[in-house]
């Protein structure tokens, strides 16, 4: 939950229509105009003042481009290449689009039926689709053309058939995911037949996927039908498409290269315009790409502070945070996530940072070492002093050098925060080696020793286990061992027990307490649970809406909370055996808070 707050900024921008989005994408717009131009010219072929593309003129064969009356020259039979190009484009477009339509129709039908019916129908249909996909793409088309005989229509069928699986698979996937949604159930219960449900309820929701698949495969299908024609297996004289033009001109490649190059470039431009457009359509219809959720996070959060604080602070405790503000860049503006956060943490001390989900606890924790995903994260103000030195003023390499060495993190859900493909031993050893090049062997034995320290039995053999082979509690112990790897001064534990069972929670907290006492660690504990704070923290800071609303000695705050929000948080810790009384006690506190 805290991760969510850190990675997805609130979508503050107003939504634009799909068309506006598509046009905002310059490449897609260029693709659309290019494609539109090609389509219009190809459609206008009958009315354009062009020579007949099939009239041969032997004396004027293989004229070079820019000859009088023949802009692109003539081919080996003296036919005007420009005219043949435009007519050929018409054929290629028609064939490519028809093949796409056929593949989309049958593929979507198979996908819809398989995904909706499930069971035996699904298995039979999808096994068949898998078989089609098991062929090297174009070879099945060749086999089909071999059986039906060369010809444009047969090439079209062949290309359509080999593309059916793409549609069937994509559409089945989406259908499966929506067939049990409430609106589908409601339609079924209202007495609609299966066919009606499929076509009036499911199909409209699957349509975007069909459009995406079509727009991303149509260029490919034009390319492939042109290819079959190039090989002499598609369009047969006197019909010709771009592929067969190229195939026929090939014989004169050395004497008249223009006859090959013109149709070749035309295929390329046509397919490229479609691909540009198709990518644009996919980006518009795929919400993930729109939100910028696939931006590459930088090694250190972007730091753009309004004021430059003093780089050092004399007589400072282990950690001093001053007026820290971090926001998320939404493109037009920076939406603040935390504002003016200040606190201090001494050696051997434990500070609890408490608040509800989205209050900015995790962003605070991650900001300290520049770990807020950026883009979109930006640190807009403030300073973080570790042993009196502002880390946000450091160079990137120096800051990275502090991570894990002086300041270490323990994260919330160890299943997603440990690398799934490395053994836990390797991951701990790696943390050691990052700051202390003592050699693999030594690092490994130190990793095993650390695992014993955090209470993993049989550490030597568990070291070669992968995270998914361990229990949640054990994984969190590994996370703690990793944090201890370089004997840090400060540990920032971001909801370390939230993903764990209550009994395991207690043991992990106990372990953290014990380590703090033994090693004099400064512990910043982020949690939403006042019970945890009461148990381990010396002091507590309460966060709400990105600001610290109250901080002080844990006991004092528990005894006499000043802020309403703090009172509510404290009240939310149930006492054992309290039963119904708990809800009765808590309800009035939230009554006026509800909007």
């Amino acid at each position, binding site marked *: 939950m805290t991760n969510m707050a850190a990675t997805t900024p609130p979508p503050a921008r107003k939504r634009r229509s799909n068309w506006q989005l598509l046009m905002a994408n310059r490449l897609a717009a260029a693709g659309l105009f290019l494609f539109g131009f090609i389509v219009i010219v190809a459609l206008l072929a009958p009315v354009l003042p062009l020579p007949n593309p099939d009239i041969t003129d032997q004396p004027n064969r293989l004229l070079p481009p820019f000859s009088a009356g023949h802009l692109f020259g003539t081919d080996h039979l003296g036919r005007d290449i420009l005219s043949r190009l435009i007519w050929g484009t018409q054929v290629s477009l028609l064939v490519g689009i028809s093949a796409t339509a056929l593949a989309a129709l049958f593929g979507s039908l198979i996908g819809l039926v398989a995904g909706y019916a499930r069971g035996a129908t699904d298995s039979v249909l999808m*096994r068949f689709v*898998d*078989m*089609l996909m*098991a*062929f*090297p*793409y*174009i*070879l*099945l088309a*060749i*086999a089909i053309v*071999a*059986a*039906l005989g*060369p010809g444009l229509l047969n090439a079209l069928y062949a290309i359509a058939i080999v593309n059916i699986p793409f549609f069937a698979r994509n559409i089945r996937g989406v259908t499966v995911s929506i067939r049990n949604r409430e609106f589908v159930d409601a339609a079924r219960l209202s007495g609609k037949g299966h066919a009606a449900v499929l076509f009036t309820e499911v199909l409209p929701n699957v349509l975007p996927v069909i459009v995406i698949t079509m727009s991303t495969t149509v*260029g490919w299908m034009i*390319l492939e039908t*042109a*290819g079959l024609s*190039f*090989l*002499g297996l598609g369009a047969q004289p006197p019909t010709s498409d771009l592929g067969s033009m*190229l195939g026929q001109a*090939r014989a004169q*490649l050395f004497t008249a290269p223009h006859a*090959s190059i013109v149709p*070749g*470039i035309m295929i*390329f431009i046509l*397919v*490229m315009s479609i691909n540009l457009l198709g990518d644009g359509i996919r980006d518009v219809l795929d919400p993930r790409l729109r939100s910028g959720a*696939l931006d*590459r*996070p930088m*090694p250190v959060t972007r730091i753009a502070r309004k004021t430059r604080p003093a780089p050092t602070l004399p007589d400072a405790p282990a950690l001093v945070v001053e007026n820290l503000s971090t926001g998320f860049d939404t493109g037009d503006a920076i939406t603040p996530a935390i504002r003016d956060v200040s606190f201090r943490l001494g050696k051997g001390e434990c500070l609890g940072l408490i608040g509800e989900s989205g209050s900015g606890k995790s962003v605070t924790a991650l900001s300290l070492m520049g770990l807020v*995903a950026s883009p979109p994260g930006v640190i807009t103000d403030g300073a973080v002093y570790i042993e009196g030195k502002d880390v946000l003023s450091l160079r990137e390499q120096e800051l*990275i050098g*502090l*991570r*894990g060495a002086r300041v*270490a*993190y323990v*994260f919330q*859900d160890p299943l*997603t*925060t440990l*690398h*799934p*493909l*490395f053994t836990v031993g390797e991951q701990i050893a*790696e*943390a050691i080696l*990052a700051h202390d090049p003592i050699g693999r062997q030594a690092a490994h034995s130190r990793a095993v020793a650390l695992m014993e320290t955090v209470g993993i039995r049989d550490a030597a053999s568990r070291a070669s286990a*992968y995270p*998914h082979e361990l229990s949640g509690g054990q994984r969190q112990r590994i*996370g703690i061992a*990793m944090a201890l790897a*370089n004997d840090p001064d400060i540990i920032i534990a971001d909801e370390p027990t939230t993903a764990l069972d209550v009994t395991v929670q207690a043991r992990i907290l106990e372990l953290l307490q014990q380590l703090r006492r033994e090693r004099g660690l400064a512990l910043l504990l982020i949690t939403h649970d006042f019970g945890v704070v009461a148990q381990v923290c010396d002091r507590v800071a309460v966060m709400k809406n990105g600001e610290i609303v109250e901080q002080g000695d844990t006991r004092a705050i528990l005894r006499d909370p000043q802020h309403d929000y703090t009172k509510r948080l404290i009240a939310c810790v149930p006492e054992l055996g309290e039963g119904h009384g708990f809800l009765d006690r808590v309800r009035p506190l939230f009554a006026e808070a509800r909007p």
Partner: protein
Amino acid sequence: MPAYIGKRLLAAIPVILGLSIIVFLVMKLIPGDPAQALLGSYATPDNVARINRALGLDRSWPEQYVIWIGNLLQGDFGRSYILNRPVLDEVLERFGATLILAGASLVICSVLGILAGIVSAVRQFGWTDRIVTFFVLIGISMPAFFLGLVFILFFAVQWKMLPASGMYAVYGGGDLPDLLRHLILPAATLAIVATGVVARLTRAAMLEVLRQDFIRTARAKGLSENTVIYRHAFRAALVSIIPVLGIQAGFVLGGAVYIETVFQWPGLGQMLVKAVSTRDLLLVQGGVLIAATVYVLVNLLADVAQAMLDPRLKA
């Protein structure tokens, strides 16, 4: 691991059987009566019936299929009536050349595609990313058969750097350097589309992985950005890149049909195109079936490689 490989091999058997059924059915699409076609003007009803009996065409389709597959298992793929030699001999001879070409392309597209994909993910929205994206777009929009012709025009005709066609020089060739010289142009041409696809998917996979929590953990440990990207992120991305490479094996095997025709490479693809034009159906059938079987096995290899990388998949 051996148990996993065994399981995958067993699972491949029905797939290969399925392929053979599809090939069988495709051949049944052929319009007209084969006996009639074979006999031409001698096609009296009597003769047609006799030929049908001799070829087993009077039996039901399932029976015909069982007989056919039984023959295949004994290595009898029939005879090519145009070349007048056993289909299997011809196919195997040609397949070596195709494997060299397709293998080289697969290596090129994997190495270049993955490198380009990583670089463009790491420098997302930077100049390198734009250049890679631009070339990827050209790559996936370029008709390979046209690019081959352009390469021949420039590298072979204009600059005389590389041979235009064939697998070995007619005179004095035949050694490995000679083969490599002949291989460069067709392999590069064949790799171009696949490289674009691999680069694109690698970029997407890297960007996806770089958002994961375990990457943040790697950074929190103080690992250098290079270690984070090339060890942690790439290792995780590779798990989803490998199946894509398996699919590209199919694209280069199929794409070889064009490239072998353009460069006169004596492989399976060139043979298939000729066989389709001469309607040498048994040759088409045998060639397609064997290429498809090899493709299934390559994908099996990709599955195994993926499972070796990702311990979670072995279960």
